[in-house]
């Protein structure tokens, strides 16, 4: 712990606010250094005041930034307290024990079995260890976004100490970059986050697509009414296959539950769901011993899923988990809904009265639970359920005598609806997801190309039409005077001059024509 402490101190010294604080307080700090060594509490209080002043100075930048820094600083102080308590006082360990007891009580209330409570305790210990790690990271970090990115990196890589050290080094680099270009980095990180989210969504869709095949096959499996017949007739092969599938399903359930727990645990806001503890307790754990405990707890974590082999316990487990998660879910949905409203503030104001909150909409939809269940239990595609050969020949028999087609369709639909209970079929929702996916991808590529091609084609056609316009059409049918020699009319007539007046006489007459004067003649002649 001594080794990391000096590094932490060095990092703290390198942070932005401290150099500013050191400069004006250099002289008084020298006098107060003696006091600090003597009076630890007083020093802390003074720092708090300075921090407040710094927050006020940073207010014009943005509220989010101020919130993030505030959250970071608060975590750093607690960390410091915890460090000192662990080194000097043993009473801190007692507090931890009291917290553990509270969690145990909650678990016991929820579950009736002692074994489960023991497992939960182990999980909580692991969580504490992980929380301590998170707090340390938080102390080092100055921005919320960095926290998120670091968490993701840690989760992806692993839980080795060396990796953690490397991560810290990378964190330092990030901090430096952020310090140099805060705004640009923020935007870039936002973009990356969005990309990651889209990638995750695509992967989920791929998983859903693959699950669709499994879903169809499961719907075709024999139902409990007919299952004993299959067992009797199946023989040893059927029994062995059944056992294998049973084992595989159990393994699948375990892996899914583990995945869910890891995902919830990684995100700080959702850890309490897994541990069942308060966020305050999480932040207190920081020591290396805690880290070791975390490792142990994790090992112990893996043990409880093994113990959870019983299939009967899963429904109650899932129900409890869902109940715990709904609070977080509602909170998140409301937050983002409000943000979108603010983004389109003007429009929102105009139509705010008509809009209802998402939570009310969801509640309204979920009120009619029977309808939703009926939709999932409706047979939407053509497939045959094993163990039900009887209803199939009935429509065939009806069609054979030559009756109208409408009649057999009626009973067919009726059969489809009758098969509701043992089936889970959500093809309508599945198709909708596929349609959206296809539209998104096609809109990004193909339509643009087609539209562009069309536009280019139109432009070319216009140019062609312009070219045609250049043709001189008036020349045809003699509508334009052409000065070509008409061979036929060549020498058709010969000049004959019978005029009696001379040129001079004519000129004089034309000048004085209709009593005109010389100048107007010239002007008009021109």
């Amino acid at each position, binding site marked *: 712990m001594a080794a990391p402490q000096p590094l932490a101190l060095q990092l703290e010294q390198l942070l932005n606010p401290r150099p500013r604080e050191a400069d004006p307080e250099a002289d008084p700090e020298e006098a107060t250094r003696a006091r600090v060594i003597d009076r630890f509490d007083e020093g802390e209080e003074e720092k708090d005041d300075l921090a407040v002043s710094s927050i006020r100075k940073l207010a014009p930048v943005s509220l989010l930034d101020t919130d993030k820094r505030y959250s970071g600083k608060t975590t750093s102080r607690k960390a410091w307290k915890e460090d000192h308590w662990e080194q000097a006082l043993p009473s801190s360990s007692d507090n931890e024990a009291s917290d553990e007891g509270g969690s145990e009580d909650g678990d016991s209330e929820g579950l009736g079995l002692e074994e489960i409570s023991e497992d939960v305790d182990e999980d909580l210990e692991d969580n504490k260890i992980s929380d301590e790690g998170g707090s340390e990271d938080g102390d080092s970090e100055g921005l919320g976004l960095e926290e998120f990115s670091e968490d993701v990196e840690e989760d992806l890589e692993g839980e080795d100490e060396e990796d953690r050290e490397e991560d810290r080094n990378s964190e330092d680099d990030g901090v430096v970059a952020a310090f140099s270009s805060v705004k640009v980095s923020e935007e870039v990180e936002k973009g990356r986050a969005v990309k990651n989210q889209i990638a995750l969504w695509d992967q989920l869709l791929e998983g859903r697509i693959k699950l669709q095949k499994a879903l169809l096959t499961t719907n075709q499996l024999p139902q409990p009414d007919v299952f004993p017949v299959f067992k009797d007739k199946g023989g040893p092969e059927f029994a062995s296959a059944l056992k294998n599938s049973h084992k595989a399903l159990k393994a699948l359930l375990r892996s899914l539950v583990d995945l869910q727990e890891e995902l919830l645990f990684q995100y700080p806001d959702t850890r309490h769901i897994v541990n069942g503890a308060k966020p305050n307790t999480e932040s207190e754990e920081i020591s290396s011993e805690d880290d070791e405990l975390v490792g142990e707890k994790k090992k112990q974590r893996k043990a409880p899923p093994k113990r959870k082999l019983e299939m009967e316990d899963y429904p109650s487990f899932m129900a409890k988990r869902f109940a715990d998660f709904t609070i977080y879910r509602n909170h998140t949905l409301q937050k983002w809904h409000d943000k979108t409203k603010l983004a389109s503030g003007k429009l929102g104001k105009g139509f705010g009265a008509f809009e209802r909150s998402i939570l009310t909409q969801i509640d309204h939809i979920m009120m009619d639970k029977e309808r939703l269940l009926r939709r999932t239990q409706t047979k939407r595609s053509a497939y045959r359920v094993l163990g039900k050969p009887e209803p199939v020949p009935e429509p065939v028999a009806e069609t054979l005598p030559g009756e109208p087609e409408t009649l057999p369709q009626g009973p067919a639909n009726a059969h489809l609806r009758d098969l509701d209970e043992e089936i889970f079929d959500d093809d309508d929702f599945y198709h909708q997801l596929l349609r959206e996916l296809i539209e998104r991808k096609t809109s990004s590529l193909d339509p643009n190309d087609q539209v562009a091609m069309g536009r280019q084609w139109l432009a070319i056609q216009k140019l062609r039409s312009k070219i045609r316009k250049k043709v001189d059409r*008036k020349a045809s*049918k*003699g*509508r*334009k*005077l*052409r*000065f*070509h*020699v*008409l*061979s*036929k*009319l*060549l*020498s*058709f*007539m*010969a*000049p*004959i*001059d*019978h*005029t*009696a*007046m001379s*040129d001079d*006489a*004519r000129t004089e*007459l*034309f*000048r*004085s*024509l*209709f*009593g*005109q004067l010389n100048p107007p*003649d010239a002007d*008009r*002649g021109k």
Partner: protein
Amino acid sequence: MQVSSLNEVKIYSLSCGKSLPEWLSDRKKRALQKKNVDVRRRIELIQDFEMPTVCTTIKVSKDGQYILATGTYKPRVRCYDTYQLSLKFERCLDSEVVTFEILSDDYSKIVFLHNDRYIEFHSQSGFYYKTRIPKFGRDFSYHYPSCDLYFVGASSEVYRLNLEQGRYLNPLQTDAAENNVCDINAVHGLFATGTIEGRVECWDPRVRKRVGVLDCALNSVTADSEINSLPTISALKFNGALSMAVGTSTGQVLLYDLRSDKPLLVKDHQYGLPIKSVHFQDSLDLVLSADSRIVKMWNKDSGKIFTSLEPEHDLNDVCLYPSSGMLLTANESPKMGIYYIPVLGPAPRWCSFLDNLTEELEENPESTVYDDYKFVTKKDLENLGLTHLIGSPFLRAYMHGFFMDIRLYHKVKLMVNPFAYEEYRKDKIRQKIEETRAQRVQLKKLPKVNKELALKLIEEEEEKQKSTLKKKVKSLPNILTDDRFKVMFENPDFQVDEESEEFRLLNPLVSRISEKRKKQLRLLEQQELKDEEEEEPEGKPSDAESSESSDDEKGWVEEVRKQRRLLQQEERVKRQEQLKEDQQTVLKPQFYEIKAGEEFRSFKESATKQRLMNKTLEDRLKLEAKHGTLNVSDTTVGSKQLTFTLKRSEQQKKQQEAEKLHRQERKNLRRSASHLRSRPRRGRPFH
């Protein structure tokens, strides 16, 4: 040939009269000429001088030998040889001709301006070349010194086509939107074009510059006329070196001297129709201006009207045969007009006989004969009551009276004299009387032949003049038939004599007879003398007559006696009738009384019957005995006998009386029968 004279100027219309259709053969045409007088009398100056439907333009070649005309339908051009007075050739074209020009002296070079922008050149053999101008053309002129054709039309440009170089030249750019007409002066070659804005632009062909602009619209409008439309130039014609005539679309003709912008004279047609063509006639200083209705000839210096020509159909073009008084017109009708006005000039050389015809017509004016009219004086009109017709077309004033139609005169006269028929009747009667008077001469001779008859007639006349007429009527047939004559004469004589004898004594009768015999003798003597003079056969019948007369006298006596008896019988019958009548008169009043009484009795009887019923049988028998209906008689044996007699009813009584009256009436009828019996007795002796 028709003659019309306006303002003492005679105009001979040589194209009037009926025309024969082309599809008739020559034989049929000759036959028609023989039969139909109208066809025979017509003068066809030029054969086939017509177009199928309408003629649009007509022109004469410079040498005067050929007349060319264009028309439709189908669009065609026809050439007439004046020396042969017939059609020379006919060429069909692709479209109608707006105007054409003969460039050579004969028909060998012709230029047509079509209404579809084409310009067609014809040579002696026919079609030669065809070309087009950018806009529709309306008129063109040929400039001989430079071989330029100037085309004006629906554009501001005047297109020039040189016929020596065989190509188009740069057009003349005028200020007008459109040009309607153009003309080139033959003396100095000035080119003038009439525009749609009512101006005349003059161009010098030598330098192709505009040398003058003349505003005619303002001058054509007079103080009296109102401006309804813009007077565009519709006709243009040069005359000599300094004169120019401009026709406007509002019907005015303006004469200009090229040296002044004010017109010398403005002549208004007063029809408001555009002027089609203007011509100059130099010998009499006349201007011929034509619109679609009339051709006016007026003096170019004073504007005084010389004469005018107003054909039946609208005019499309007018052409004056050069140096003559002949006028050719293109009409809105198949026939083209030929008019000869001797005053303007002599007839062309190829129809010099027209002068002789016109001279003869003048020398021998036809005298008017009023065969169908009656001359009536004012007095006659007053008598007829027709004074109110004076001034109406029924009466035509002449000398001291009026001419009126004979038919009208006769009708009116009949109405005015209602007694004409009676006069006619009287005249007829007088004629018949005169005829009868001639016959009376014969009657005088007859008594000479019959001496006895003559004596008898004389006696009858002396006795009764009135009866003489009746006898005369009878005597006439007696003369014809001698036997009947004698018989008839005797009977009436006897009747009359009988009456007179009864009233008078028998002796005078005898005396009279003797006197008669004496007279007879005297007459006989005279007759003997006459008989000797006359022929012998006349004497024989006189002897026969005398013998017969003696026989008749005996019968006569018997008849007299019979008549006396008849008279007596008649008297008796009359007396009986009178008595019967008296009886009848007596019965009638009794009849009335009885009726009244009967009614009275009927009431009493009813009352009495009731009383009788109440009484006993004895009482009834007593009453009946009183009345007489009951008869009681005692027989010898000792028994009594009762006899009842029934009462007669009123009806039976009436019937009996009616029968009596009927019998009396029959007796009266019997009397008439008795008369009939007496008459045939007279007839027996005749047989």
